[in-house]
């Protein structure tokens, strides 16, 4: 198959040759490697050769061919944003699409059109292109193995080639895209080529309120798969009604030489390392372990994030160890009961939450594990017990850190399309996507599936959020249905259905609103509501604007069906740049890069300044969130 640039114009083409989404488990050669680097993984981070083109027409068409002369290419760091490397213009914009006032554009298959719009992105003047080249030597230990490449986050449309052969295509910017390189990998030197278009039809789905960037902004890994490999792991700890005991169900999917002679040995230890259960299963493409009864369990909660250690060892036909997969899981029960109150472990849920964008003032959304650990510490220090991953899936380590530190997660899909229906505050959905549009259904379902498959084993995830500020329609309802069919251990959340009350029976387990006034929330709660209430965004802490939290706290005290909310948001989005006039490193925000249209300082609305120091208002948050831990 050859790559086709027209894919970026087509909302129905969003993954080509991409491996199916699967659980985010790590795997190692042996138990000694656990908590270190896996010898199955070789990072391709670091300097890559890079050619920047202002438009698709300017791109070096054959750059992926092994004989391409790349001497004129620059060097760029992976991961990073192309904009922060000085190529494309930095832009901050909220609801409007970034081409507002510059290019007239409507999503394909809208406004009664049953056709694509040829060239809408592939011949666009505002679609810069990054052509990346990485030469790597296949590690000795990777020889004769199945080899995949994993791009953990690329904005926005990604084409991949290896040694001149087309490998695959992906869009979803905030989830890993994996491709099988095995047919074309060679011993010794290999040339991996990646082409990244800043915009494609997914731009309509990724209209998040944030700086607009492009490029390979999360890590890239070369991964060797052992002869028998656990592709997917489904861990289902079920808490019994007595909240004392439980049952653990584990199933797996494997690939490779999964003949009957491979064996999977499972063990579970408690946090002291004491073995609770051991089991063995012959390998199969799909397999389930026998349900495991736990007569006495420690529950996972923010107060006590107790995790059990699951370990699966895969042995080959000659009893040689092929891989080990560790996973820490927790028992916790999320219930929406007949009293229309959400309980976790038999206790009413009170969300002392924040919305968190991934952010670093120097590197944008290319953040490190140290940034994440620092954010966890800030949350724990200030009684914040929940995070909504606004408005996309975060890097994988974040979910593990939330498990380990007891932070509830509302795991949100990569979806925000408010520019298609929210016009200067008014609701005007005439070219709304995804809406009810069948041509935009599969792409959003794919995002729901990926989010679910990746993070399904994390006890911290108690809600699946279908995305943010997309006008609810049958496509969002289908996403909700997907989660309901696959997961009875969590609830679904979607605020956007507030605009389409006729869909409320099909979308979202909670009544969720943003920036609702306490009086209006009280009115909702006093009128026999059908669903518990959550503020998915509230308090908007822009600059020095946080006050009056007591009114929300009163609702927590007064109404069990008021279950708290997520402050908007966790950290100011601003960029540290050098100011030649004052000769200081200073923070810059929207409009400071000559970019128009912009929403200026509107993204400076964190409980922390962009340099990760706390705003003065944090002491108020800590106080109120501390009253109902």
């Amino acid at each position, binding site marked *: 198959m050859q790559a086709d640039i027209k894919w970026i114009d087509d909302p129905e083409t969003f993954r080509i040759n991409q491996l199916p989404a699967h659980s985010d488990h790590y795997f190692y050669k042996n138990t000694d490697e656990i908590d270190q680097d896996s010898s199955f993984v070789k990072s391709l981070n670091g300097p890559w050769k890079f050619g920047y083109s202002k438009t698709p027409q300017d791109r070096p068409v054959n750059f992926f061919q092994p004989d391409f002369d790349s001497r004129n290419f620059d060097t760029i760091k992976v991961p990073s944003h192309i904009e922060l490397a000085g190529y494309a213009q930095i832009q901050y914009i909220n609801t409007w699409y970034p081409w507002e006032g510059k290019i007239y554009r409507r999503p394909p298959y809208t406004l009664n059109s049953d056709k694509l719009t040829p060239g809408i992105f592939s011949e666009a003047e505002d679609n810069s292109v990054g052509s990346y080249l990485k030469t790597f030597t296949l590690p000795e230990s990777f020889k004769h193995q199945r080899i995949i490449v994993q791009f953990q986050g690329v904005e926005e449309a990604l084409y991949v080639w290896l040694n001149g052969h087309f490998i695959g295509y992906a869009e979803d910017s905030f989830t890993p895209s994996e491709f099988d390189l095995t047919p074309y990998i060679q011993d010794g030197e290999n040339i991996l080529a990646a082409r990244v278009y800043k915009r494609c039809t997914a731009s309509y789905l990724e209209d998040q309120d944030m700086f607009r960037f492009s490029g390979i902004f999360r890590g890239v890994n070369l991964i060797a798969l052992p002869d028998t490999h656990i592709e997917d792991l489904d861990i289902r700890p079920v808490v019994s009604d007595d909240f004392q005991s439980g049952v653990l169900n584990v199933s797996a999917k494997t690939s490779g030489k999964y003949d009957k002679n491979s064996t999977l040995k499972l063990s579970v230890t408690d946090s002291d390392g004491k073995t609770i259960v051991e089991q063995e299963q012959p390998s199969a493409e799909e397999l389930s372990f026998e349900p495991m009864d736990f007569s006495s369990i420690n529950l996972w909660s923010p107060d006590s994030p107790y995790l059990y250690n699951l370990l699966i060892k895969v042995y080959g036909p000659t009893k040689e160890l092929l891989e080990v997969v560790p996973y820490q899981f927790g028992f916790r029960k999320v219930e929406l009961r007949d009293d229309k109150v959400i309980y976790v472990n038999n206790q009413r849920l009170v969300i002392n939450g924040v919305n968190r964008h991934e952010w670093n003032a120097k590197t944008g959304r290319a953040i490190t594990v140290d940034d994440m650990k620092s954010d966890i510490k800030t949350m724990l220090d200030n009684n914040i017990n929940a995070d909504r991953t606004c408005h996309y899936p975060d890097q994988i380590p974040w979910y593990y850190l939330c498990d380990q530190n007891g932070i509830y997660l509302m795991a949100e899909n990569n979806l925000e399309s408010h520019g298609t229906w929210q016009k200067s505050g008014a609701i005007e959905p005439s070219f709304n996507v995804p809406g009810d549009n069948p041509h935009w259904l599969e792409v959003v379902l794919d995002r729901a599936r990926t989010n679910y498959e990746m993070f399904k084993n994390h006890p911290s995830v108690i809600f699946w959020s279908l995305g943010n500020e997309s006008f609810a329609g049958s496509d969002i309802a289908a996403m909700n249905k997907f989660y309901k069919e696959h997961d009875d251990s969590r609830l679904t959340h979607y605020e956007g259905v507030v605009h389409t009350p006729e869909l409320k029976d099909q979308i979202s387990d909670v009544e969720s609103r943003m920036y609702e006034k306490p009086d209006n929330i009280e009115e909702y709660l006093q009128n026999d509501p059908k669903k518990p209430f959550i503020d998915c965004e509230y308090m908007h802490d822009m*600059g*020095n604007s946080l*006050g009056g939290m007591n009114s929300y706290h009163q609702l927590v005290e007064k109404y069990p069906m008021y279950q708290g909310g997520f402050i908007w948001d966790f950290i100011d989005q601003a960029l540290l740049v050098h100011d030649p006039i004052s000769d200081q490193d200073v*923070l810059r925000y929207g409009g400071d890069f000559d970019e128009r249209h912009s929403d200026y300082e509107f993204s400076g609305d964190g409980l922390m300044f962009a340099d990760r120091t706390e705003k003065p208002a944090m002491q108020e948050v*800590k106080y109120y969130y501390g009253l109902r831990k």
Partner: protein
Amino acid sequence: MAYANNQLHVIYGDGTLGLGGDDFHYIFSYERGGLESLVTQGKEWLYRTPTPVFWRATTDNDRGSGFSTKSAQWYAADMFSTCEKISVTVDDKTFDQLPVAPFNNQFSDEEYADVVEIAYTYATNTVPSTPVEIRYTVKASGQIKVTVHFDGNAELQDLPAFGIRFIMPTAATGFDYTGLSGETYPDRLAGATVGTFHVDGLPVTKYLVPQECGMHMNTSALTVTREKTLNNADHITQPFELNFNKADSDFAFSCLPYTPEELESATHIEELPLKRRTVLTIYGAVRGVGGIDSWGTDVEEQYHLPAKNDYDFSFTIDLDK
């Protein structure tokens, strides 16, 4: 100079009223419409006369909810209100006219009193205008009680704040206060702890766009410390202090290197002027900062400052803590 019977030495100047005592000397100006000089231990504490304050810098929430636009008259009033009337009372005698030349020819350099009160009445630069009085009551000990009164007028928009501003000639090295921890506002003080706190320098909270910051509510005592003066003959750089204490009730204050108007004009923190002075504002009333959002919803009703209300507050300036 020793003062007879521990009384205030009253100097009936031609354009000012001087009050002296051990280690202090104050000049109340008729021309400048306020307290022009406050010298303790030979150090001047005032750069310009204190004026009534009606503005605190716009927060993002004020901007979003349109509050600053609606209440913009108070911005003008904060900068350009004028002193319309001055009244002087020495012990029990209130002068019918200001004791300036030639009326003051009847006095000598040997005039003494137990207590002197001077009241300045300002007309706010608003339509309609409303009177504001700042009254200084000076005792022989040198203590000044400052009493501030706002005459409510229902025709005016809500106030951002009401207080009095002292601009000091050099930047303070820090301040100590007894009150609430951190930065607090009427709608954001639940999380604070009560105590005595030291703050180094004159920190400006680094909001992305400079705005109102550094408020300390429910304060009972404040000490401002400086080390430098503008006096070319003063070569001593020992720290020196001035104390502000609650009188009838606690006060709020901010101690910053900038006026609200300076904060208002900058789009980034590095655009603010060099820190060269101390702007101490003591507030009797402060509007809240919090909205539900930052682009349309106003601060909760109970944290507004309706102009129809009278506002009164008082505090003392003390030479000793």
